């Protein structure tokens, strides 16, 4: 106590000194600034409240999506009863992340197939629109990377996951996407897209939400582990070498037949022309008398 009294007394001796006011001012600023930095909510960009995110998403939705889907995502019909844009109530954030994240939405024009193109909205904007659409009704959320990663499995479990995923893929997916994941035709100009460059996240979301003419594979239908295994099989297809050589597009017998005719028969006929054009060489040389 005496020590405390003495040090306070020593400090208080300077209280009327020439720099005391300045020091006190700096001290005050430091404390209040530090407290603010520590306690105040961080910048608005980093952690938006859900309400703010939804509000921002709504603004973007009104600009980019509402023309076809309606101002409240309720869906619009054309005058003759066709659907201009379907209702988005209950499609969930996963559907938005898939459709906008692959550039399918906003669509340039309504049609049988929403083609992929460079994304119109960046990641933050996509997240905001997804939050707005998710707020319209309960639906599947954007999956997290743990949902479709094989981390934490040992080699044998990974192999089993790939084998299982291959069988699920061949049973449920190849009918439209082809055995190699190279895509196929759908009625009226639609197409099941080539899966060779689709990110695991988007494949997962597509299974979850069933975009376009695709079936949706809910978690009751294909469990999250089974979805993960399908993705593992597709990633394995990308990684494994092309054992047979060039794949010729991986489209099946049509491209193979094309190569048999253009490559095989073409080359062999060219050789036949070459052989027939070179007739027997006479051993007689110029200047040699017969």
């Amino acid at each position, binding site marked *: 106590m005496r020590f405390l009294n003495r040090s306070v007394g020593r400090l208080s001796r300077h209280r009327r000194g020439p720099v005391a006011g300045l020091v006190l001012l700096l001290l005050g600023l430091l404390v209040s600034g530090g407290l603010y930095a520590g306690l105040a909510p961080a910048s608005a960009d980093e952690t938006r409240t859900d309400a703010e995110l939804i509000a921002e998403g709504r603004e973007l939705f009104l600009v980019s999506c509402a023309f076809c889907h309606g101002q409240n995502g309720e869906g619009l019909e054309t005058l003759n009863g066709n659907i201009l844009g379907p209702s988005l109530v209950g499609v969930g954030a996963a559907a938005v992340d898939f459709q906008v994240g692959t550039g399918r939405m906003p669509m340039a024009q309504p049609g*049988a197939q929403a083609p992929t193109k460079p994304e119109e909205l960046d990641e933050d904007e996509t997240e905001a629109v997804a939050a707005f659409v998710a707020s319209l009704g309960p639906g599947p959320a954007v999956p997290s990377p743990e949902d479709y990663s094989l981390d934490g499995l040992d080699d044998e479990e990974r192999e089993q996951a790939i084998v299982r995923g291959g069988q699920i893929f061949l049973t449920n997916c190849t009918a439209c996407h082809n055995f190699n994941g190279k895509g196929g035709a759908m009625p009226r100009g639609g197409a099941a897209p080539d899966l060779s460059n689709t990110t695991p996240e988007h494949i997962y979301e597509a299974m979850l939400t069933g975009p376009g003419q695709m079936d949706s594979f809910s978690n009751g239908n294909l469990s999250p582990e089974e979805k993960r295994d399908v993705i593992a099989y597709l990633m394995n297809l990308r990684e494994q070498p092309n054992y047979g050589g060039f794949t010729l597009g991986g489209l099946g017998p049509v491209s193979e037949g094309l190569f048999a005719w253009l490559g095989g028969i073409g080359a062999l006929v060219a050789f036949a022309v070459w052989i027939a054009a070179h007739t027997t060489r006479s051993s007689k040389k110029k200047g040699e008398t017969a």
Partner: protein
Amino acid sequence: MSIDTSKVATSNSSAAIAKKPGRAGAVAEWADDRLGLATAMKKNLRKVFPDHWSFMLGEIALWSFVVLLLSGVFLTLWFNPSMGEVQYNGSYDALRGIHMSEAYASSLKLSFDVRGGLLMRQMHHWAAMIFIASMMIHLLRVYFTGAHRKPRELNWVIGCLLLLLGTLEGFTGYSLPDDLLSGTGIRAADGFMKSMPVVGSYMSFFLFGGEFPGESIIPRLYTVHVLLIPGLLLALIAAHMLLLVYHKHTQWAGPGRTEENVVGFPMLPVYAAKAGGFFFIVFGVIALMGGLLTLNPVWLYGPYDPSKVTAGSQPDWYMGWPDGALRIMPGLETHLFGHTLSWNVFLPIIVLPGLMFTILLLLPFVESWITGDKRDHHLLQRPRNAPTRTATMVALMTFYGLMWAAGGNDIIAILLDLSINQITYFMRVAVFVGPVIAFIITRRWCISLQRKDEEVLLHGYETGVIMRSPEGGYSERHLPVSESRAYTLTARDRDPDVTAPESTVDANGLEDPSSGRLSGLRQRLRTLMYADNVQPPTRQELEAAHHHADHDADHHADHHADHELESRDRDALPGGH
């Protein structure tokens, strides 16, 4: 110029004595004494074949068949044609532990665990694709050049049977690995059979030994694939080639070439070397394709399971056109007394291929019936000199090609961003309209080329030399073609005159026995066949034309005053000579 005298005999005092035969000669003599090969070989080793690239197309088929036999024998050493179920434990990770048939497991073993097995599998499959393709281009060459005419009609029939058997052989081979694609093919074949009224389901149960898929189909197809059809193919190829030797090869018209001779090089040494070398080229091309280009990656398809199917399930190319017919056929069905007649399957896949094959088989006979031409032909015709025949085949090719494209409608749709429905609607019309358009265009095209030949013969070829007359008119100088080219162009028969109505009464006043109810149709077809053709110029026409050309050349050189007026008129029309 010095004369090489080293090979000239220095004296003529000693008589020529036959040298003792060398070791090879002694062996040949030993064999000849016992087998009598020399007499048979003497003639055939010197057999003459004419030289043209298009005569080697059938050889591609022959050599790819040899590659098929060689690679096929290799595959039989490991392939196990059984539908017994096993669990896969081979090298391919993504299928480990899956239950599958032994046929599929041994296909995977061939692909991953047998050294060189995948190369052999792919070579065998590529060789099959090329075998059938080369038979088809060989067929086209024969037909376009008129080599199917008497005396070769039966060899045409044998060739058609080879094409049919080759297709069946290819289909059975496609079905053997028991992967998803081949199983889908067998499933389709089962459906095709069942579409046949009355007998269909009995045939299917007979073939599969019960309901599809059963356990018998792959062992049965295996026997057909490695024994029955290859045996028939070998026998028919032998017959085809014996007839070729017996008939002697056809040749193009030209100076010194007649219906009685064959101008070309002898079998030994020239054709043995050319054909032998071509075998190695065919083998090499197939080996390159087998090594570099994936064909039927069975490991990606997985084992066959009737509940699975893949987009892009197509047959190999030679079955593509009936598949196309099936794809564009509208869904017609009749229900009779509780039975369904599937015209949508029966017509395009059972009736149509049978009809097309019959048409192909009958082409030479129909043609000789229409033309009434019963002479032997060993000189080939240029396609333009038989415009209707050429147009007929082009129409058939157009039909085939459109059906073929329809068989790949899904691939066309995704690669060209089209609607598969619109492709189907287009094809439904195009397969009927396309061949007609192709027929008309080809026929007129051939006749135009005949006119071109006539112009070259009568007025000479265009030299590119532009002449200016003193009056200032321009004209292109035409020069007569060489004798041998003129001979080649004129060496063809004149078509029969069809403008005069054919009399049914012969010179003795007797009714022609051949004139029946069909003679009117035959007459109309003859008119269609020949009426617009350009006939080769007669000797008088050629001489008159040459006289005119000589005269014209003198006239240009001398520019005689008498012809000034005529010349001016002519020069006013460039190239109007």
